[in-house]
């Protein structure tokens, strides 16, 4: 079943009859990929995820997870998915192990199976040594790992991650990505995640949907999205004096060449492949390249291109804001 694990058609959520959080969204997630929803706060990411995990009912449109309709077959959906929410949901008064076993109970997993799985998962997220400590004493990264372990207790086919590294510092964030990759490999899952961190989407996701104001603006792999901007920037200098603009322009994939004082600014598709060809072409004519710099467009530029603005902070509902602030505070505790 390499086809579509998640499929959404015209998925819409309207709150209080006039606030459209998600607006006729269509997308599909293929088996085994990490699909990311990238967008600013308040773009409708969490609302989409909440509909897919059957917490919210769609106002319009439909979606299915592993072929189960999210509105009509919600019990089947709930059984095959794992959820790692944005917040730290683990009970602070209980120990790590107790929390995982509680999650297991919610899926009706018998105790002896639950204990085995819990031991495996604790090892996977490297919390075995802390399993009998109260969650209160955990750091933000450890809590996030515990949430990951809880989300995997029912061996889900699809794992939903809502802002998996919200509030974590850069090092912990990168470590968390590693755990997520490891988990995905271990359990051969399909992952659906939301994030508002560009680096996270870039590094972790196989495909990204950029969402803004409840609508998907563009979908593609991070590479595709970057290339869709028209290529990389190559800055180059040569030892000799003459103007070689025309020569460079004749190289395949070069789209634009501009001479700036002693250097050339070249816009080219597939910069890393094109650059050697440019050097070769110049050398054949007897020129020597003294300096070369290749800049790839980042997702930030992609984001700018498609939404017309940089990642911004949109004012959200007080509740979401408070919940996020609390998550961040606990992450840093």
């Amino acid at each position: 079943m390499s086809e579509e694990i998640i499929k959404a058609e015209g998925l819409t959520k309207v709150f209080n009859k006039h606030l459209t959080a998600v607006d006729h969204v269509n997308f599909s997630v293929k088996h085994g990929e990490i699909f990311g929803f990238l967008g600013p706060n308040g773009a409708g990411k969490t609302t989409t995820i909440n509909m897919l995990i059957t917490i919210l009912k769609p106002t319009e449109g439909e979606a299915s997870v592993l072929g189960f309709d999210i509105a009509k077959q919600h019990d089947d959906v709930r059984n095959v998915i794992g959820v790692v929410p944005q917040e730290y949901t683990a009970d602070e008064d209980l120990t790590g192990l107790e929390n995982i076993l509680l999650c297991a109970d919610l899926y009706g997993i018998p105790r002896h199976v639950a204990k085995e799985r819990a031991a495996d998962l604790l090892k996977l997220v490297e919390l075995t040594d802390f399993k009998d400590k109260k969650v209160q004493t955990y750091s933000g990264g450890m809590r996030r790992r515990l949430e990951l372990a809880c989300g995997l207790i029912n061996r889900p086919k699809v794992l939903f991650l809502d802002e998996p590294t919200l509030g974590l510092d850069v090092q912990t964030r990168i470590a968390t990505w590693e755990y997520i990759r490891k988990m995905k490999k271990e359990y051969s899952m399909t992952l659906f995640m939301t994030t508002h961190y560009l680096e996270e989407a870039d590094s972790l996701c196989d495909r990204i949907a950029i969402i803004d104001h409840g609508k998907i603006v563009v979908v593609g792999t991070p590479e595709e999205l970057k290339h869709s901007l028209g290529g990389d920037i190559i800055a180059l200098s040569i030892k000799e004096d003459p103007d070689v603009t025309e020569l460079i322009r004749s190289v395949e994939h070069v789209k634009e060449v501009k001479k700036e004082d002693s250097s050339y600014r070249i816009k080219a598709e597939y910069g890393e492949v094109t650059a050697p060809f440019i050097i070769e072409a110049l050398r054949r004519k007897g020129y020597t390249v003294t300096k070369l710099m290749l800049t790839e467009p980042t997702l930030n530029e992609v984001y700018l291109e498609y939404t017309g603005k940089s990642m911004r902070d949109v004012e959200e509902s007080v509740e979401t804001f408070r919940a996020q602030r609390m998550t961040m505070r606990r992450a840093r505790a």
Partner: protein
Amino acid sequence: MSKLNEYHPGRFHGIWALTKRELKKWLKEPIILLMAILQPVLWMGLFGKAMNIGNMFSSSNINIPSVIPIPGQALIPPQNGSISVSGTALSQMFGNLGPTIMQNIFGVKDYFSYMSVGMISFIVMFTTMFSGMSIVWDRRLGFLNKVLSTPVSRGAIIFSKVLNASLRSMFQATIILALAVIFGLQVSPTFSPIHILAVYAAIFLLCLGLSSVFLALALRSTKWETQMAIVNLINLPLMFASNTFFPISQMPSWIQAIAQVNPISYLTDAIRRLTVMEFNASSVVFDFTFLGIFAAVFSLIGIALSWRYLTK
């Protein structure tokens, strides 16, 4: 290749898992239990002992002068001169009236026995309120959403809160009753240990109704401050417009009207009749009927409201 989750939570599995979580949290914080117990104990010790109503009517409080001259013209038919009555004898006479008055008004001989049983209603009320409020926290911390995304039924989420409130109330009620006995509660001669089971049943019924109400209230609010304000607002009238501290028969009629529909009154009455007062089967059955109807109606309303809210 991972397998699909081959298990599915049974109805009771989910309820028990969630109840266990609450109970574990509760037992891990003995200080909360201590505080919850301490409050009714203070009421019992200070209010129950200080308001020594039975003693007000005792012979030592009725100080009639040893000789009371009664003017002759006050007596019919008028006599020459005047007669005297022995004050000591009168004091004794009135002193013996005390227990009778207590028995007639309160149904027990001492106020302490009367009000300490009322403390069970007190603790039931507070426990159900806090249990209701805890769902506000579950929501804010995201735990509720997490549970909602699992196959556990919505009913189990609500019922686990109710069950938790009931079990805690019963446990605390046991402690309160035991302490009351130590402090001088006088058990009625008609009491038998089997009555304890009926006491638990009555507590359970009230918990069912009350915690459903508080849950439904709490589910709508996202701030525990709002919840706190509501709770503070309703606990005073619930407490005092009931027979917890004073018999309904002595209240002005408008308070009586409230007290007569106040479920707290019925729990208190049922427990009193089962423990400190003379057992009266028909009254107890009436109390249970009221509590039963209250529990059925309000748990249905509460669960219906919560259900609607949880499947938004």
